[in-house]
């Protein structure tokens, strides 16, 4: 008995020693900072300044009265609304095509995954030369068909869709890989059963077995893609800085600009809290959907 109790105490001690660094850092670098952001958001503090005044909800009031904030929020929503369906549909189509036959399978998979690995800051610059009004590939191609292209990244109407296409380019290979994993986990017996029921054509199999079985993976890809799309920053910073006339400004770029270009810490903190709330809401939706998936299966 005493031996067991001693052993327990020893295990306790060792466990606490093992988790101590992680716990200290969780407080110092994760939860402390979240608390700090919330506190900053109620003050007029600026980085480096020694005075601090409590403002209550003034920062939030200013934020919600700021047209640029609403513009950035709307732009972010529109960007997500283009990138998410584009990525999911293209990723699913490519995954189905790749898995349909073995020929060149691994080549196709690697080729589509390349953009996922690439440094976006560098590839964004490459895209800017491709979208260049005169020497760019896109307008050269359009000219072949007698269409005169626009200055994609300097035109208020086209800048956000152009950034969204770059976003789809970067993430559809990622969606493809997750869909391929989903496809591989569909048991062959289901296809056999469908074949017995007379569904042995490609489209029949797709409709009766493949797509229904991919439901959960699709939900998962949808949420992951949405999360990544909400975090769009690199292309905006490198290519447009939110312009022209805020037509491509997004939440995270606003957060960066207010906090670190203009050094309005309190205001930036309020923006951070709003950004955090949006992302958390999305994650809650994710948890709920994953829950439902568990109940259904």
């Amino acid at each position, binding site marked *: 008995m005493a031996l067991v109790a001693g052993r327990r105490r020893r*295990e*306790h001690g060792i*466990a*606490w020693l*093992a*988790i101590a*660094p*992680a*716990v200290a*850092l*969780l407080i*110092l*670098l*994760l*939860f402390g900072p*979240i608390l*700090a*952001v919330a506190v*900053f958001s109620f003050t007029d503090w600026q*980085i480096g300044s020694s005075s601090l005044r409590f403002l209550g909800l003034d920062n939030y009031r200013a934020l919600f009265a700021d047209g640029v904030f609403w513009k950035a929020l709307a732009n972010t929503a529109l960007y997500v609304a283009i990138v998410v369906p584009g990525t999911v549909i293209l990723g699913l*189509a*490519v995954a189905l*095509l790749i898995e*349909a*036959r073995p*020929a*060149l399978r691994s080549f196709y*998979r*690697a*080729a*589509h*995954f*390349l*953009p996922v*690995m*690439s*440094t*976006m*800051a*560098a590839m964004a*610059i*490459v895209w800017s*030369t491709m979208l260049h009004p005169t*020497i760019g*590939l896109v307008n050269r191609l359009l000219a072949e068909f007698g269409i005169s292209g626009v200055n994609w990244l300097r035109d208020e109407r086209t800048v956000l869709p152009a950034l969204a296409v770059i976003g789809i380019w970067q993430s559809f290979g990622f969606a493809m890989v*997750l869909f391929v*994993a989903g496809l591989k986990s569909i048991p062959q017996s289901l296809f056999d059963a469908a074949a017995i029921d007379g569904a042995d054509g490609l489209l029949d199999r797709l409709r009766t077995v493949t797509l229904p079985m991919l439901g959960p993976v699709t939900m998962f890809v949808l949420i*992951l893609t949405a999360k990544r799309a909400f975090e769009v*920053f*690199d292309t905006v910073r*490198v290519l447009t800085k939110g312009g022209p006339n805020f037509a491509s400004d997004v939440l*995270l770029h606003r*957060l*960066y600009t207010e*906090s*670190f270009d203009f050094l309005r810490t309190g205001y*930036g903190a309020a923006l*951070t809290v709003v*950004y*955090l709330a949006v992302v958390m809401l999305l994650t809650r939706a994710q948890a709920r959907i994953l829950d439902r998936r568990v109940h259904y299966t």
Partner: protein
Amino acid sequence: MTAPKRRSTMSPRLRMEGLARHGALLLTTAFALVPFVWMISLSLKPPEEIFQPAFHLLPQTFHGFDNYRIAVTAAPMHRFLLNGLFVCAAIFFLQMLVCVPCAYALAKLRFRGRDTLFSVVLLGLLIPPQALAIPHFVLLHVFGLLDTYAALILPWMISTLGIFLMRQFFRAIPDELIDAARLDGLGEFEIIWRVMLPVAVPALTAFGIFSVVAHWNDLFWPLIAVRNEDLSTPALGMLLFRDDEAGQFTGPLMAGAVIIVAPLILAFLFAQQRFIDSISFTASN
């Protein structure tokens, strides 16, 4: 009788399907790869060819040597790559040092507060790292660490994802292995580093690739943490080079992009399967 007949009628259809598949995939492959081809093509061309109305994939006059020379002399490209390597390695090393013991305790030891700690880790998974930028900046400012390597590394020391992934992996390791090690007289920390760590190499590799890819490509935090060009990581270095005088010229700019993008792409091409598995495994947890 029916089987061979059926095969002969299916065969042309199957061949058509195969061709259609290649046709469609060629289009999407082009979409994925064109920016890389375009980048390499321009990086080999003299300025007048880049601006001429007729486009050729291959340069008429090879200007690649000059473009790459301008890129590496105008900006410290090798510094950017070495900084990337050093910062990513340091981040992953520290993450491992912090996460592995904690994950082991969460998976294999009984102690008060274990469930609480685990739910705190799960909560931490939900926090987007960009939301921590302001307090991290303030913290580093207070300690006078802004614009140092420490500023690039320290905020990432703790990874709730790392703890979570390693805990899941350790849980699947049978207790007998640990009991045997205890009977051999090994202390708990010896068990962590000398027994569990070698077993956990697959999980560590997966998390390592994920961590390195994320921090090599990260622009948001380096943009905040450092001003000094000599400390820039690849993504930030690329941006500084673009805004520099030499970056006004498309040829050298594309050469610079090739240099920045190449290391991860090459690593990926060498270990494709591992990369794909690791990214999808880590993301799906």
